């Protein structure tokens, strides 16, 4: 296996060689569709460069390297600002799940390679209007129909569904048992009759999320993943799959040094803001917090390198970094005075305070709201009890609504 340092150098060299072609300058002014097309070209180029599917098995078209190799690549790719966002979920969760569960290996291999090349995109159809944090409360139905299944219902918040060729979905196959026990997991063809994806705008006018409707969508039993009634377990496995995710102590927003540059430029009471004690305090506090997350990340990397399980403190990254980003963005807007009112929708999250601020709430909610993360820390790490759950053990169709 290629050494990490050698791989880091190889990845860095390639990423820089395609910066002009796929970087922020190339993306500026593109429509969503044009940006996606550029993203597909980027993924194909990455595949051809031998840098795709880093920790995926060779038999499915991956490189068969370690999770650490993947992190090494991702950490270098992240700051480049390439249009890879459309493929993150696709390759992060559904693709590993079909590799793990699906029997038809040849079909899986075709899907994996198409997804790695950006030719096909997969989405994850989990959340619903009445099932967000409480995933097992979902209501989309999968009813047995001859040898197959019929799906009816609605999903919500599905990222990139409007660009997706396939999806993985959890649906209720038996409402007469308690909520976690009556779910079944499938893969689904997003072009099949009866599937309708409707994108909608988030508060920053980004169009990522969809509501997806299912009207008598027919599935074969071969599309089932895991046992009937075992859907919640597969869903949990999907969410746990990404042990090797690059995290960002800046919460994917601007860095503390970017804030310091601003604080040197703007004036406060006739002096550069950076000389003001309140501003210095904010800088120091945010730096200390983020350097702690960075040290946690480094230690986790060393643990994995040594073949150890990284500690559970890695789960703090998202919780701490997004809060830090949100508040620092507010302060950065404040100290600019009237100039802080300006908004450039073309600017990037890492280099514009208003853009960072406006999308920060999404980060604190998507993929586990702060409150759920605190519950998880309290319950899984510290052994505190679950909340009172009045719906526990009750058949789903008898839970009062």
């Amino acid at each position, binding site marked *: 296996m290629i050494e990490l340092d050698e791989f880091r150098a190889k990845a860095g060299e390639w990423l820089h060689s395609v910066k002009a072609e796929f970087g922020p300058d190339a993306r500026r002014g593109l429509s969503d569709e044009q940006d996606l097309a550029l993203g597909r070209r980027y993924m194909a180029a990455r595949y051809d460069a031998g840098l795709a599917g880093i920790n995926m098995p060779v038999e499915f078209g991956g490189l068969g390297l370690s999770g650490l190799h993947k992190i090494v690549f991702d950490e270098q790719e992240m700051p480049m600002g390439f249009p890879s966002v459309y493929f993150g979920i696709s390759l992060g969760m559904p693709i590993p799940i079909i590799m793990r569960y699906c029997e038809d290996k040849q079909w899986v291999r075709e899907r994996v390679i198409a997804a790695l090349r950006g030719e096909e995109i997969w989405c994850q159809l989990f959340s619903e209007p009445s099932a967000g944090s409480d995933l097992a409360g979902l209501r989309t139905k999968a009813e047995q129909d001859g040898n197959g299944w019929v799906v009816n219902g609605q999903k919500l918040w599905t990222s990139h569904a409007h660009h997706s060729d396939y999806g993985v979905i959890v649906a209720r196959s038996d409402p007469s048992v308690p909520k976690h026990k009556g779910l079944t997991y499938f893969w689904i063809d997003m072009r099949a009759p009866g599937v309708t994806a409707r994108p909608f705008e988030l508060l920053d006018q980004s169009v990522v999320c969809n509501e997806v409707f299912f009207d008598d969508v027919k599935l074969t039993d071969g599309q089932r993943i895991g046992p009937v009634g075992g859907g919640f377990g597969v869903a949990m496995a999907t969410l746990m799959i990404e042990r090797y995710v690059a995290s960002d102590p800046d919460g994917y927003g601007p860095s503390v040094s970017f804030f310091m540059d601003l604080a040197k430029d703007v004036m406060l009471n006739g002096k550069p803001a*950076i000389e003001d004690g309140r501003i210095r305090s904010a800088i*120091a506090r945010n730096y200390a917090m983020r350097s*702690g997350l960075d040290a946690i990340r480094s230690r986790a990397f060393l643990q994995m390198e040594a073949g150890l399980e990284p500690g559970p403190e890695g789960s*703090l990254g998202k919780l*701490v970094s997004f809060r830090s980003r949100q508040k620092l963005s507010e302060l950065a807007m404040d100290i600019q005075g009237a100039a802080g009112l300006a908004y450039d929708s073309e600017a990037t999250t890492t280099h514009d305070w208003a853009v960072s601020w406006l999308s920060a709430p999404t980060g604190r909610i998507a993929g586990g709201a702060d*409150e759920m993360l605190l519950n998880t820390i309290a319950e899984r790490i510290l052994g*505190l*009890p679950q909340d009172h759950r009045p719906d526990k053990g009750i058949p789903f169709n008898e839970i009062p609504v």
Partner: protein
Amino acid sequence: MSILYDEAQEAIAKESRRVLDAQFDKDKLLGLLDGTGRFDEAFWKTAVEQGWTGLAVPEEYGGLGLGLLEMGLIAQSAGALCAGAPFLTGNYGVTQILASCTNGALKQAWLPRLASGDAIGVVAFEEAGAPLPSDPAVKYEGGRLSGKKAAVPGALKADFAIVWAMSGGKPVLVLAELNAAMSRAVDSFDNSRLYAEISFDGAEAAVLFEGEAARCGALDCLARMAVVAAHEQMGGAETALLLARDYALERKAFGQPIGAFQSIKHSIAELYGLVEVARANSIHAASLEGQGGFLAAACAARLSGCEAYDTAARDAVQIHGGIGVTWQLGLHLHMRRARSLSIELGNALFWEDLLVTELEAKAA
């Protein structure tokens, strides 16, 4: 980059905690709060027996020649049990300054005694709320010191002090032997820290560093001590967190453990976040000892250590409810120690400024 502890370091962590657990006596610690002049003698005896006093003393002077990582582990164990004499950090500080100075006679006089636990040294830098004043009022002239240093940790039992003073318009670091007549006890909310006001009043002293070298040496010493203290704070914060967690599991109200209420469990989970950030920063800073970036890392460790311990002590008391504010439960030992450790070595405001100055210098 951070580090993973090696086997020897893991053993220090485990063994120090085991030894201190075995001698933990809450009633004794509560008794020490009652008056000035007494400290946790059993702890210091253990520190001497275990060789912790010589841990960071160079081998040529009878020590083990280990570094901040190992000192930090001892401090973490001490902090976890509210144990510890103020000399743990103070002796480490004076050892660093002595070891880096060029006065062979003073090194020979003190370092072996520090290693064996026979001598106690304190660091007396602060004046009027400034941890390292640019123009200290304590003066050094003609080989003698004049002026006062207020509430120096450990001073009541110390044999000597390394003092930040002014000499002919330049700062100096000087070593002065202390005697009982020079120290006046300060009655404190955390009396086992042995705070005393030192009046130098013409005491003889010897120069270790002058001018810019004195300033750099003093700052490096403060930063190193802050990293030791950050480990102690993190150890204390973790204990407060675990006490709160245990109580939230055991105490029932409205028919369930109070730990099932999100107001309680989220506050405990937040403490976990503070403790882990403090731990990561402490280990990171200790691993950078003597390297570039150490000062900024020490500042970050100091800030997250203060925040973690103050918050964990405060919230652990709150989560305990009424029982938390009783003398006998002793949670206030953590409240007190969190505050004393946050004030000794300079408050967070000082370290915030220092950190930003350091980051500005790095960016320039």
